């Protein structure tokens, strides 16, 4: 820009280039979103034969399905609350093969947060199923909650949660980050393992020593299975069977989470073909400081499981 406000040749070319690039990006994103089928009116877990595409969130097998749009709400039932509605809508698709059920979860997020680090929080998403919907069905029903508490389960109403974490996905894909990866200039001239050996040094890594899932050094799945019976009661399940994968491309997360429909475990949810089951969702946007109760959640929605 020249001092008299007129555009010089260089500025004009730069501005034109920026507009063209921005326009192309907008068209690209629009095409990316629009090339898929429309919105479904109800959530259906479609029956498929053979293995489910649990490692391929971008596969046609998923994207050819209509998505079920779930309106997300700011979690404001219990403090702390998120400061804003960071994820207004979650697109859900589901399929099963009689043995396993998988959910495809998609939402807009232009900043990838896949770190677990001081003052940094990860993107993540969760699917919640009731452990004993028959027992819960006896509870007084309301049109919204279907008799189920919106409080991440409740005493006597245990829920089974599949929690995908972007940081765990990074662990699985690229290996667990070390402090040196997080802070390249951090210096540590003497470590417990260097002096005591790995086994004896473990006590100096309390989370690892205590068996906390957050601290696990080997990560096989980006998804954690948990149980809960109300806010604040979330507990890692002893048996971890959930599988899946998440990718972020062009400002959208696509995450697949799957689990056995019947694990034979009374403390986990069982999904039966030909039946209907309630399912609930939560999404966290790490960039906005989301973690724990600072999240977007959706109340229970019915899901038809094709026979």
């Amino acid at each position, binding site marked *: 820009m020249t001092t008299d406000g007129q555009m010089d040749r260089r500025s004009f070319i730069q501005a034109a280039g920026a507009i063209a690039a921005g326009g192309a990006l907008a068209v690209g994103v629009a095409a990316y979103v629009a090339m898929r089928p429309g919105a479904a009116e109800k959530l259906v877990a479609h029956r498929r034969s053979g293995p489910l595409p649990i490692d391929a969130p971008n596969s046609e097998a998923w994207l050819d399905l209509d998505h079920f749009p779930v309106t997300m709400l700011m979690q404001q039932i219990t403090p702390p*609350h998120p400061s804003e509605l960071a994820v207004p809508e979650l697109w859900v698709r589901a399929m099963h093969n009689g043995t396993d059920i998988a959910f495809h979860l998609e939402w807009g997020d232009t900043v990838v947060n896949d770190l677990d680090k001081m*003052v940094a929080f990860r993107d993540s998403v969760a699917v919640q199923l009731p452990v004993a919907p028959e027992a819960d069905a006896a509870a007084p029903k309301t049109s919204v909650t279907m008799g189920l508490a919106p409080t991440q389960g409740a005493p006597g109403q245990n829920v089974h949660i599949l929690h995908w974490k972007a940081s765990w996905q990074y662990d699985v894909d690229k290996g667990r980050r070390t402090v040196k990866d997080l802070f390249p200039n951090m210096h*540590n001239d003497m470590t417990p393992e260097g002096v005591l050996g790995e086994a004896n040094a473990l006590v100096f890594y309390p989370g690892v020593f205590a068996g*906390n899932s*957050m601290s696990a050094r080997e990560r096989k799945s980006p998804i954690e299975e948990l149980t809960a019976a109300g806010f*604040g009661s979330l507990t890692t399940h002893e048996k971890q069977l959930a599988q899946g994968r998440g990718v972020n491309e062009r400002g959208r997360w696509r995450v697949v989470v799957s689990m056995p429909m019947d694990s034979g475990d009374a403390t986990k949810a069982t999904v039966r073909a030909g039946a209907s089951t309630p399912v609930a969702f939560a999404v966290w946007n790490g960039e906005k400081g989301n973690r*724990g109760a600072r999240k977007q959640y959706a109340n229970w929605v019915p899901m038809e499981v094709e026979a």
Partner: protein
Amino acid sequence: MAEVNNWQLGRTMQYPYPENRPKRQIAWVFDTNKCIACQTCTIACKSTWTWGSGQEYMLWNNVETKPFGFFPTGWDVELLNVMGPAKWANGKLESQTIFEGVPAGERVKGWLPAEEDWANPNIGEDEPVGVAQQGTYIPSMPHNEMWFSYLARICNHCTYPGCVAACPRQAIYKRPEDGIVLVDQERCRGYQECAQGCPYKKVMFNNNTRTSEKCIACFPKIEQGLQPQCVTSCIGRIRIAGFISPPGEVNPQNPIDFLVKVRKVALPLYPQAGTEPNVYYIPPMHSGRDYLHQMFGPGSDEAIKTYQNTKNDPELLGLMMLFGSTERIMHRFRVEGETAIGMDEAGAELVRVPVREPSWVRTYFDEVRGAYNHNIT
């Protein structure tokens, strides 16, 4: 919210959980006037507990220069920003604690330090308030012209911890047997709500294990009747750790009670936060008084007056001499003439020290050797 009694505020206050005091409460007294910021305590703690990867920036114990030193940077300035200035009237807090007037959607009034706030542990070291002019000298004590002081800090193992209030899943607990506040390493999910809620910023996220950690008061030592590492390593003998009696009870033979409740020479740090911290400080007598009022509450003038009269107070002087004289926790003490005696829980003697150290002043010129003495005391 429950209505709980906070004796340091002279009133009841709101807290998320009902009052549930431990069977006994570990407490410390730090004499800021004797601290030289040598950081021996810092290193003793660091080399004992936080030398693992992921804990690089953690200093469960740190010593900072006041008013321009802080770790993390600006923690106390932020605290005062969040709460506003404390207002006291006749020993009663009139302003709100971090648990009162909390914004909607939050559990406590807090803030989360930025990553870079943890990058300068010794920022502001030895920086004084004021500027020395040509000819500046210290005409009298106390003075408000130029000053700085050292503040040694650990977790306060508060009676009403901000971290406990902030954790949405009760993964932090206060031990009933001694009041030590600990993060449950099985339940912590690394939300860092505790780091946000602690007014003293003494809960820290481990970048390796992805859970939060904090000072554990060297509980394996306390369980054996020993004082924590930061206390026993202090070369200036500025610290003592023991058990404080509950509010309304005073045992004048108990060293902590004597300092906090009888002589009232040791005061809590930023009591207006409302956590009822259990580290008590003898205020730095040469620091600005307005600053001290904000930092230690309305009792700071009287505490300094009492401290400056120590030489005429045999009991207080004797107890001051017992600081740092034994590794064991001293439950009782007494002064007999020129001797101060510390005792364990059963009343058995742990240590005895002279109330006044013998001293000898040499002549400036040594006539026997025909030489001048450089050090005559």
